[in-house]
């Protein structure tokens, strides 16, 4: 590595979209100078002037990957993604935003079937959950519109995240089983957590300052 090493500079991986916007509000409230126009930017790497921060905008499922490999020091990502990706990262803080729940859902008249099939964007979570329940199911990975699967007979149940339940209701589905609650987390790379401990602690502290205002304290 020939370039000088800056142990204060922090690269933060963020999911594009709502969570990024909410996190920016957080950081602004915590006194981090982030430009007002960031969410509209189409750039994928965004340096923050007057601070040693840099954002990488990524697909949510890729955030833990960036952090595990250390191309980002810390990241902001939903617990659903962490459970699905099983990456080796530090999970430092519950930011208490992006609150939803991981559910098993199906048609109201659902009955156990001989060869159960479950459609989901989260095949690992689904497999693990049903194994823990002592059920063998066939998990079908879909990339979107999972609610469709029971309606057209592709699967008899789905595993998905539910926040208001509106999409389920609109498609005539009901929540059958609650797997776990999901919120957004602050994660850190294993090496950055130690090599850049001050910078990592500082950003965690800044998030922490604003979390209690939003919700009940967790620390």
């Amino acid at each position, binding site marked *: *590595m*020939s370039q000088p*090493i800056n*142990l204060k500079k922090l690269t933060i991986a963020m999911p594009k979209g709502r969570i990024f916007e909410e996190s920016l509000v957080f950081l602004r409230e915590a006194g981090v100078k982030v430009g007002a126009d960031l969410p509209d930017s189409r750039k994928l790497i965004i340096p923050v002037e007057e601070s040693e921060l840099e954002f990488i905008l990524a697909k949510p499922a890729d955030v833990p990957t960036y952090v*595990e*490999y*250390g*191309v980002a020091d810390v990241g902001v990502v939903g*617990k659903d993604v962490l459970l699905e990706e099983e990456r*080796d*990262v*530090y*999970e*430092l*803080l*519950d930011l208490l935003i992006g609150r939803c729940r991981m559910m098993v859902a199906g048609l109201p008249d659902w009955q156990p079937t001989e060869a159960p099939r479950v459609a989901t964007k989260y095949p690992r979570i689904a497999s693990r959950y049903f194994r823990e329940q002592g059920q063998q199911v066939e998990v079908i990975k879909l990339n979107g519109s999972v609610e469709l699967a029971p309606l057209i007979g592709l699967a008899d149940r789905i595993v998905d995240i539910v926040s208001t339940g509106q999409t389920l209701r609109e498609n005539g589905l009901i929540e059958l089983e609650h797997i776990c609650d999901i919120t957004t*987390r602050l994660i850190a*790379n*294993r*090496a*950055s957590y*130690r*090599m850049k*401990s001050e910078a990592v602690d500082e950003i965690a502290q800044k998030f922490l300052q604003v979390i209690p205002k939003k919700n009940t304290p*967790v*620390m």
Partner: protein
Amino acid sequence: MARPLVFEKPLGMRDMLPESLVKQRQLESALRHCIEKWGYDEIVTPSLEYYDTVGAASATLESRMFKLLDKQGHTVVLRPDMTSPIARVVASLYKDVPLPIRLFYQTNVFRAQEKEAGRNAEFFQTGVELIGTESGDADAEVIALAVSCLQAAEVNAFKIAIGHVDFAGGLLEEIVSEQADRDRLWQFLQDRDYVGYRQLAGSLNITDTERRRLHALLHLRGGKEKIEEARQLTVNGKARKAVQTVVSLWEALEAYGVTEHLLLDFNLVSSLNYYTGAVFEGYAADLGSPLVTGGRYDHLLAQFGRPAPATGFAIKMDRLMQVTSIRPREITQRLAVVYPASSRQEALLEAQKLRKNGHIVITHLCESEEAANAWGRERGYEVLYVNGREERE
């Protein structure tokens, strides 16, 4: 899986081409020189070991071992690490050699990968084992040696985090009465899931003071000042003893003069349950994963019938390659001795003479001097065209 295409290799396997191998060999030789000065002797053990001996004793998960059947039907494994084979040797072939025994190795180990490519299933390690010394001075020696190794490998910025397996475990025992809760908290620490840890700690039926102590564990990483903080968290017993061990270890490391490269991390818990005392991990700036892992494993040797305390570490060479400042040696200018068939003997003798004088010499048969020069230019060789007959004419 589809039938492999000709260019494909099994998951996690990779080639080492001359360009990077030159660099790795240079690094290995730098590390070897460093380690030998501390009185460690090199050892090589077989690539294959019995699953029931080395495999079962190894800290590597069974699911990550490459298992095969030998001709007699025994399950054998590609060695998943070097620590267990060395323990086997020390307890058998070296059973009469007095302790302490200092050994080092530079070799490849194998760990099957479950996730996608990008993670190696075969990787090279340089490591040391110091077997037979119980005192903190032995832990300090291997940590100081790890620092020396990283310096010898010219790693610019690195830190070695030191912890103790009994601290977190002991603290949990002091505070949490239910074994099941302790196990879950321990699992959260291993998974590095501090959110889950705090949530569970928050839901336990314990006093607020006890809860604060559980939370405080997560903040015990930093410099020497953390020792006092750690001590204040403990009441007595295992955790307090772990702090004492760390205190004397730190004193020994101060004597080695290496503490500027160290930090303390009392929540450093290894997923490997075989560590029994001080543990450490080395990190370099701009490298996402630990470069060095090590620690004390006092129970392993007993599994091979010669109980003895031990400590050691391994450096991952592929990671070291990414952060070393050592530049690969320039490839020395190569000479090409080119000759027509009629001058073969003369040319080959000349080539031998040049090699003896330290040149790298390639020989090539070519009837025309002009073509020989073009051939050499294309490959970057300095051409020496030997044509005895012409000279005689």
